[in-house]
């Protein structure tokens, strides 16, 4: 029976390693792969009046950019891997959104890289991988 693996991808080196690992797993388990790219966003952040006005335009641009520079190159890269790949592009808090996608797609596991882009901020406020491990409802693999 085929199953689904969700892998978090943000374009960083560690997320690339996570992706390679996920592709290997998917090949050997004959699983389908869902590559999730999350644009960090909180509906409770504060914006200026001008930002409110331009939000819809900016969102369209952000989605466009993510598709063009993150997901499309990725799909090209994975096209001859022999694995069935789908992509998900979402706004939200990275960890919550990844786990949400896993539930939605009835995934059997989640694979994420250990340090995404974030550096100091991630160290202070908790990295995505750690949060995913804490709140996920399916097994999580963290790739160093």
């Amino acid at each position, binding site marked *: 029976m085929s199953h689904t693996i969700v892998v978090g991808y943000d374009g960083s080196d560690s997320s690339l390693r996570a992706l390679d690992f996920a592709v290997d797993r998917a090949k050997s388990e004959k699983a389908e792969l869902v590559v999730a790219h999350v644009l960090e966003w909180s509906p409770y952040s504060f*914006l200026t009046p001008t930002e409110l006005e331009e939000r819809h335009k900016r969102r369209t641009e952000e989605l466009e950019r993510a598709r063009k520079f993150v997901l499309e190159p990725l799909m090209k890269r994975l096209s001859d891997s022999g694995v069935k790949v789908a992509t998900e592009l979402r706004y939200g808090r990275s960890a919550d959104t990844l786990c949400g996608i896993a539930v939605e797609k009835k995934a059997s596991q989640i694979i994420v890289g250990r340090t995404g882009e974030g550096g100091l901020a991630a160290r202070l406020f908790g990295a995505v991988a750690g949060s995913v491990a804490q709140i996920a409802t399916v097994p999580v693999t963290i790739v160093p």
Partner: protein
Amino acid sequence: MTQFMKSAALAATGLVAASAPAMALTLDEKVNQVFASATGWFVNLIFSPFPGSEALLGYAFPWIVLWLVVAATIFTLYFGFVQFRAFPHSISLVKGDYSDPNDAGEVSHFQALATALSGTVGLGNIAGVAVAVGIGGPGATFWMILAGLMGMASKFTECTLGVKYRNEYPDGTVSGGPMYYMTKGFEERGLPLGKFMAILFSIFCILGALGGGNMFQANQAHAQITNVVGDYPGWITGIIFAGIVFAVIVGGLQSIAKVTEKIVPIMGVLYVATAIIILLINYDKIGWAFGQIFGGAFTGLGVAGGMVGALIQGFKRAAFSNEAGVGSAAIAHSAVRTKEPITEGYVSLLEPFIDTVVICTMTALVIIITGQLVSDPTTGLYMLNEAGNAIQTIDGNSGVALTSAAFSASFGWFKYILAIAVILFAFSTMISWSYYGLKAWTFLFGEGKNKELVFKIIFCIFVVIGAAASLGPVIDFSDAAIFAMAVVNIVALYLLMPIVKREMNSYMSRLKSGEIKKFH
């Protein structure tokens, strides 16, 4: 919004004038003269007492206050007390319970509310309330809360229309506000003069933005800074402020504005939290304070003007603090992404609640409970000061100083926090009004980089003028302009309110039938 803080600000502006360079002073005088003679009639018209009110009530009742309160009452009745019936639903909307997850990344209800609030929460909540309680006594609080509760219905009406009739451009940006519902809404209903009213509104909006939304704020921010660090020329503050405002609105340095947008709510929460702690420390007096508020609301407790005096002060304060009916909020709320304009109406009705019913009440309670107002121990009535125009306070304070003294009675360090809060509130109010003014400007003159730049530069120049000078007549005029916005806007709201009712009924029936679902 600001007219009645002026008595509080008088001392401060006096200081500013004295410290301004000699040349600016003569310039001030010239500007004052020209302005006073050209605009005095307009100011007098807007703030003139209701005919006969002085003879009937023994107290001048500005008709503009009556205009706002009557409108709020009519909307409250017409929409069947929507502010109470829909209150829980408003909270779920702000929490995002009804937001489609596929729309994540768009402006949320919470964000629209927070931005609109940062435009209204400001000096009115700190200084204005102190003036109201100082003149009208504790009873003013009761009427202020009542007017705040009714003002929620005015906001509901104007913000629903703001979203419904906004313009959406091909590039995805939006423009909304009274000028758009006046033109498009009137056309839809086959009413004449929509364009004329929109133009009139835009003119008042630009003037209000430059005055009450800019010069007055800069002026008060400077007064606060000098209170803490000592006296220095106002143009220095003005140039620094103008520089920052310029960087934000012309340079597109949204990050600076974002920082204030973040700090302002924190300040607001800190302010309310401190007030609650002070109330808890004095918990044994809370019952007494409410006794004073209710007693004073109907008897006046010896306050100048008695019950009517308390009522007028309370109504004024609420109307001028939360801007319900003025139309500015309709501009701020119109950027939200929603398929149902009415949902933004529901969200916006929380604004007068937070601004007036919560924050203004906290200020009033702290002033009352810390015993700032002196009363006669034998009769229990409040004693008037020597001039006989306000209640005697323990240190003779009024306005911001009264609020500051009340809070500092429990926490000595609070005056520094308060000074920072006032400056930040002033800054965020300026940013909000620069936007409202710009929207009115582009409505009149069309969109375009250069046209917008002209307005933005004018706005920055007025920051310096506002901080450096004591321009009584100019500020009077710009205050009058803000309330002139309400005259035009409320006429439009009366004419368009059936549209809001239709939207409301349709939405409510779909909510009941389960067609509109919760996502979370």
